[in-house]
C-alpha cells in the first residue's frame, strides 16, 4: 500500500516536471536571443534623439526643456524617472513622466499638449515625448524605484490604480490581473510578470520605455498600457489620462526597490 502511494507520488513529480523542463529550454533560448540583441539596442538611437530634444530650443516660445521640473527640482534628470509618477504642486496633480513632459512642453515651449494627446504613436510630437522619456529613463539606469506616497493624492492614485488593475470588463471580461495577477503565466513565449506584487529588477514597470524588435518601435509606458487595454478589448484609454497615471502609480509603488533597466529591449 505504502509502496503504491510512493509510486503514484513519483509519477506526479514526473508529470509536473516534464513540461517545466521543455519550457525552460525555450525560455533559455529567448534569453540568449535577448542577450544577442542587447549589444545593439536601437533604443540608443531614441535616447540620443531625446537628449538632443531636451536641450534644443523649440516651440512657439523657442525654449528648451532644461528648466523642466521632473520632481527633483528644475533641470534635475538623474534619478527623476524612478520616483515618477508623483504629485506636483504647480499642477495640483499626480503626473507620470509623459504627462509631466506635456506640462513642461506647454509651459516652457508653448507646445499644445493636444498635439500629443490627439497624435499617433511614433509620429510627430508624440514620438518626441517617447524619445524624451527614453533618454530621461536611461539617466536613472540601475537605480531602484522609490515612488513617493507622502501626499494624500498619491495614495488615492495608488488605490485607484489598484482597482483599475483588478477591474474586469470589455467583451472578453478581462482585467490586468487576468494576465498579470499570478506567477508563472506566459503569453506564447513571453513570460508575464505578476504585477500585483514586486516583479523584481528590470521587469514590468522597470522595463519601459523599451524597443520592440518585432515591429521596430520604441514604446513608452503610455504605449505599453494602451496596448494592454487594446489586447483586453477595452476602449483605448486617453493618452496621459488619470487612469493611465493611476495604473503607473500602482505598478511603480509595487516595484519599490527594483532596479530600472530602461531602455530595455523586447523581442
Amino acid at each position, binding site marked *: 500500500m505504502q509502496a503504491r502511494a510512493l509510486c503514484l507520488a513519483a509519477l506526479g513529480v514526473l508529470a509536473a516536471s516534464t513540461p517545466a523542463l521543455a519550457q525552460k529550454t525555450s525560455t533559455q533560448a529567448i534569453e540568449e536571443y535577448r542577450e544577442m540583441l542587447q*549589444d*545593439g*539596442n*536601437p533604443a*540608443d*538611437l531614441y535616447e*540620443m*534623439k531625446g537628449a538632443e530634444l531636451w536641450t534644443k530650443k523649440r516651440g512657439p516660445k523657442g525654449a528648451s526643456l532644461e528648466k523642466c521640473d521632473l520632481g527633483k527640482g528644475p533641470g534635475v534628470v538623474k534619478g527623476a524617472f524612478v520616483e515618477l509618477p508623483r504629485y506636483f504642486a504647480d499642477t495640483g496633480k499626480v503626473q507620470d513622466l509623459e504627462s509631466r513632459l506635456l506640462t513642461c512642453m506647454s509651459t516652457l515651449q508653448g507646445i499644445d499638449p493636444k498635439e500629443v494627446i490627439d497624435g499617433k504613436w511614433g509620429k510627430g510630437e508624440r514620438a518626441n515625448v517617447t524619445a524624451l522619456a527614453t533618454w530621461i529613463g536611461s539617466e536613472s539606469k540601475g537605480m531602484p524605484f522609490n515612488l513617493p506616497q507622502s501626499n494624500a493624492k498619491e495614495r488615492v492614485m495608488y488605490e485607484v490604480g489598484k482597482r483599475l488593475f483588478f477591474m474586469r470588463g470589455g467583451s472578453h471580461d478581462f482585467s490586468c490581473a487576468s494576465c498579470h495577477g499570478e506567477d508563472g503565466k506566459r503569453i506564447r513565449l513571453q513570460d508575464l510578470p505578476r504585477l500585483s506584487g514586486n516583479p523584481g529588477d528590470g521587469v514590468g514597470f522597470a522595463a519601459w520605455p523599451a524597443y520592440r524588435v518585432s515591429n*521596430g518601435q520604441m514604446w513608452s509606458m503610455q504605449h505599453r498600457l494602451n496596448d494592454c487595454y487594446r489586447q483586453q478589448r477595452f476602449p483605448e484609454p486617453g493618452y496621459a489620462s488619470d487612469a493611465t497615471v493611476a495604473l503607473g502609480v500602482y505598478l511603480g509603488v509595487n516595484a519599490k526597490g527594483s532596479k530600472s533597466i530602461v531602455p530595455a529591449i523586447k523581442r
Partner: protein
Amino acid sequence: MADPMRIRAQASGDKTTVRVLMAHEMESGQRKDSSGKLIPAWHITDVTASLNGKQVFSCEWGPAVSKNPFLQFVIKGGKAGDKVSVSWKDNKGDSRTDEATVS
C-alpha cells in the same frame, strides 16, 4: 534629413572593433499598406567605413536588412585617438556620415 548613427570603436591589441547602429526605416518593398498598395522599397544600398580617411570597409545592402540595423566589424590596426567614419547611402539618394574616435 536622416537621424545620426551611433558608432563605437574600441581598440584591443592590433584590432579595432567597430559597432554601428543606424537609424533607418529599411522598407523592403514587399509590404502593403492598409489600403493594399505596395509600400515602395526604401533601404540602405551602400555602406562604407574608413579609418583616418582611408577606406577599410565597404558593402552593399539590400531589402533583407532589418530596420534600425546594427553592424559590427573588425579593422586590422587602429589605436586610441584614431578616427573611424561610417557612411551610408540609400536608394532614395539620402546619405549620412558620422565619425567616432577609437577608444
